[in-house]
């Protein structure tokens, strides 16, 4: 029997405002045990982060309304009640960092850019432990070594910008572990990281937990990560706990409908694919051969020219009519650059890219002049990643969707209104939505508006740059299904840029895997995901968490 180190009972937190208050979480109860990982899952706004902050009593401007947070000192047999302490008092500050440490989602913004990594870790150690600065430095080096940062003696004097994203998250963990806490709270620590880096961080956390016998409170929205690392799972919805239990029970015998919905929307590699194995047509719409693009480093006053970045190297892809082609890769692999080349934003130094027009003609996409008459933009449309930034907040939905029709001189007045209404209904929104401004819509609804704008001109190709990665699981699934329907209905070809392998396997017909500007492997989606050939693809696929605790492979 593991020792319980934290007991939370009936915790409620609310944001007070002039007209009453907004309840953030209500009646949340759970236990954390030494040596166990408890995962908190739920979609954005479900109260996971507020719960974590409430444990540290840092919920301002909200207040803890009721409930008890008992921190147990197992060795001394003492209990401290945290929720009643003054949020600025000395007692709670002695707990934060020392007994309970926290790591955050965004390692860049949670590290100070003007201090070295070492200074930040040493500060945390000096605050809570009675050691000399030299001892603290030795401890910091030990901590960096523990998180497997190479050459910790040198790395300790570097600044956060000299670290990669994964190394920064390791440094954050080193800082959190510097005082050997009993409880580590990790708030989406791997969400901003690439999938292979995520796998390394998860492995590291698990190893540290085993060697130090810590309790880990891990917040995530990714059911795959939960299945990989959790011992216990707490499912949250609208600020309340709807289900809690051991990980195997939650995944294989879920009691609550919301848990089942989360599991169904989690899109692991086991999901039934909906892409077609064979192309619907042999007609090629976009064809690139040997595209290469290097960004020269910027010439700056009084600076020497340093080497540029090779964003694309010898990229050859083909997009056929009615086909969904996935472009997969980690950040910096050149997938977005490829999309921008195809949309005429950048001109490659080498290679060719051709678009075959509906009327049989061709356009050279490497030449800026080909885009001037707008014909390419009428047939090739774009869906953006950020549902908030891609709709002009100062225009109504009618104006946004109608803009391409109006500018192209195709429709105006009542006919335009009617067409916009049809488009809205086609993407699953009521026609009456056209009078509203984008701020009245949720993220998924905005993405539907973006899709309506894209299909307004009856295009042949849609380039979707991470079109679903800003959305929560179940809404992402709805948007993908909408795109599948539209593909069948309008005979669309979709170039789908993504980093989420589960989504690609579910959605795409064929996949091209990119790594450091090169296409390392191309093939049918199912084959790439289930039987990858190239070593990089194998590494990528094996790093994908599988949402089934019985198939753990990352941290075993």
């Amino acid at each position, binding site marked *: 029997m593991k020792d319980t180190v934290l007991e939370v009972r009936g915790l409620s937190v609310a944001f007070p405002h002039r007209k009453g208050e907004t309840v953030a979480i209500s009646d949340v109860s759970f236990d954390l045990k030494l040596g166990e990982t408890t995962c908190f899952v739920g979609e954005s706004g479900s109260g996971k982060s507020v719960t974590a902050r409430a444990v540290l009593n840092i919920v301002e401007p909200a207040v803890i309304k009721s409930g008890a947070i008992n921190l147990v000192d197992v060795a001394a047999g003492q209990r401290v009640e945290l929720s009643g302490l003054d949020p600025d008092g000395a007692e709670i500050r002695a707990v934060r960092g020392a007994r309970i440490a926290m790591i955050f989602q965004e390692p860049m913004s949670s590290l100070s850019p003007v201090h070295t990594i070492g200074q930040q870790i040493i500060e945390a150690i000096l605050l809570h432990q009675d050691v000399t600065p030299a001892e603290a430095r030795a401890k910091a080096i030990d901590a960096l070594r523990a998180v497997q940062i190479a050459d910790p003696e040198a790395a300790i004097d570097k600044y956060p910008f000299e670290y990669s994203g994964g190394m920064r998250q390791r440094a954050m963990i080193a800082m959190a572990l510097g005082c050997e806490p009993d409880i580590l709270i990790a708030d989406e620590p791997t969400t901003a990281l690439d999938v292979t880096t995520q796998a390394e961080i998860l492995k590291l956390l698990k190893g540290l937990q085993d060697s130090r016998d810590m309790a880990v409170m891990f917040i995530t929205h990714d059911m795959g990560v939960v299945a990989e690392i959790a011992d216990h799972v707490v499912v949250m919805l609208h600020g309340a706990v709807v289900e809690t239990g051991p990980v195997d029970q939650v995944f294989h015998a879920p009691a609550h*409908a919301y848990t*089942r*919905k989360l599991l*169904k*929307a989690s*899109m692991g590699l086991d*999901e*039934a694919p*909906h892409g*077609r194995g064979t192309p619907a047509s042999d007609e090629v719409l976009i064809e690139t051969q040997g595209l290469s693009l290097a960004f020269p480093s910027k010439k700056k006053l009084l600076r020497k020219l340093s080497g540029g970045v090779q964003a694309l190297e010898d990229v050859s892809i083909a997009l056929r009519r009615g086909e969904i082609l996935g472009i997969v890769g980690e950040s910096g692999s050149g997938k977005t650059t490829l999309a921008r080349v195809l*949309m005429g*934003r950048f001109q490659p130094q080498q290679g060719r890219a051709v678009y075959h027009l509906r009327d049989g003609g061709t356009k050279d996409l490497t030449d800026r002049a080909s885009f001037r008459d*707008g014909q390419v*933009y*009428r047939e090739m*449309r*774009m869906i*953006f*990643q*950020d549902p908030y*930034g*891609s*709709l*002009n*907040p*100062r225009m*109504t939905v009618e104006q946004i969707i109608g*803009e*391409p029709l109006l*500018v*192209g001189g195709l429709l105006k007045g009542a006919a335009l209104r009617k067409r916009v209404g049809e488009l809205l209904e086609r993407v699953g*929104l*009521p026609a009456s*939505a056209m*009078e*509203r*401004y984008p*701020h*009245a*819509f*949720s993220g*998924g*609804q905005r993405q539907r508006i*973006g899709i309506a*704008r894209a299909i307004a001109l009856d295009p042949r190709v849609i380039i979707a740059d991470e079109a679903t990665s800003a959305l929560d699981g*179940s*809404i992402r*699934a*709805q*948007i*993908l*299904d*909408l795109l*599948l*329907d539209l593909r*069948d*209905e309008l005979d669309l070809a979709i170039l789908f840029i993504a980093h989420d392998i589960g989504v690609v396997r*579910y959605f795409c017909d064929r996949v091209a895997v990119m790594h450091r500007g090169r296409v390392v492997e191309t093939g049918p989606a199912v084959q790439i995901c289930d039987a990858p050939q190239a070593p990089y693809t194998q590494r990528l696929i094996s790093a994908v968490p599988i949402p089934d605790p019985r198939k753990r492979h990352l941290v075993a």
Partner: protein
Amino acid sequence: MTLTTPANSPDTRIGAVSDTPEAPIGEVDPRIDTRHGTESQWQLIRRRFAKHRLAVISLWVLALFVFVALFAGFVAPNDPGDVKARYTYAPPQALHFIDRADDGWAIRPYVYGYSVEIEPEALRRTFVIDEDKKIYLSFFKRSWEYKLFGLIPTDIHLLGPERNRDPFYLFGADRLGRDMFSRLVYGTQISLSVGLVGVIMSLVLGVIIGGAAGYFGGWFDAVTQRAIEFLRSLPTIPLWMGLAAAMPSDWSPLQTYFAITLILSFLGWTELARVVRGRFLALNGEDYVAAARYDGCSHLRVILRHMVPAFTSHIITAASLAVPAMILAETALSFLGLGLQAPVISWGVLLQEAQNIRTLATAPWLLLPGAAIVIAVLAMNFIGDGLRDAADPYAK
């Protein structure tokens, strides 16, 4: 057309299981105070501005100033240039509305008259308010002639003594017995308009230069940025002195007035150009601007339809904060005797009278134009603050 194909049977769709659909439309973005989702940008800005109470009060104060400036002749009871040697340094009279007499009271505005005493040692004339002499006032009084808006000749004034020869000095009189209140009213006209005209001129310069620099970038941007940095590094007062000295002394007051506003806006445009350039640069990276290009919009349509509406509110804010700076600059110039010259009346010109400590000791009311400047500048700054907070209702 069918929505599904055999390959995609709907029951295996993961999106299909969601029993709780997405949030209903109208479930609002919590960052934005919206009621129905149909409010335009300007409605959102107005509602946010209305919450800034100090700014709303300041708006009314400014409205009063603008009214006074527009209807200066109507508001001023006396001709601001009318010299009355009898009333040199006459003190301010208090305005009374309730006339108490032995047989009851009546609402009838009046002021008390003066009686003159000679100080025996200094042989100086001093005025004492004489409560036995009541000077009754009447509304919409006809007295001296002026032209409303410089066009319509009339002689109606808001308030004036029933007998035109009686003294009526609400804010006292100056060295030459001219009515400070009327002079202040006319000064409002010049000072506010210098601020507004100066800002409009700098706005035109700033928007064109800053907009071109932001949209086209490249060498033009580099050159204008360095030019702006150079202009902003110049010490302003010596520069103004130099420019004012370069002005021919035989110019009419009107020509000087325009030259002064030109000098002020010559330096004022740099701030606005930076604001506009910054907005252009920021907006160029927005997805919705890229989307507009992909929608087939021309450069002009992208700028006018998609980019300009996003920063008009910012420009209005920057301009509203620039007006008080202009007014202060004009005041400083005129106070130093470099700007506007008599017979033109501005707040700065009026304050020139208050340069002498000894006259200030006998006639402290000569400082009243300073109070007007403080109130006007504060009000405009508060309005600017309120606008700045309300300008971007979509900010995160």
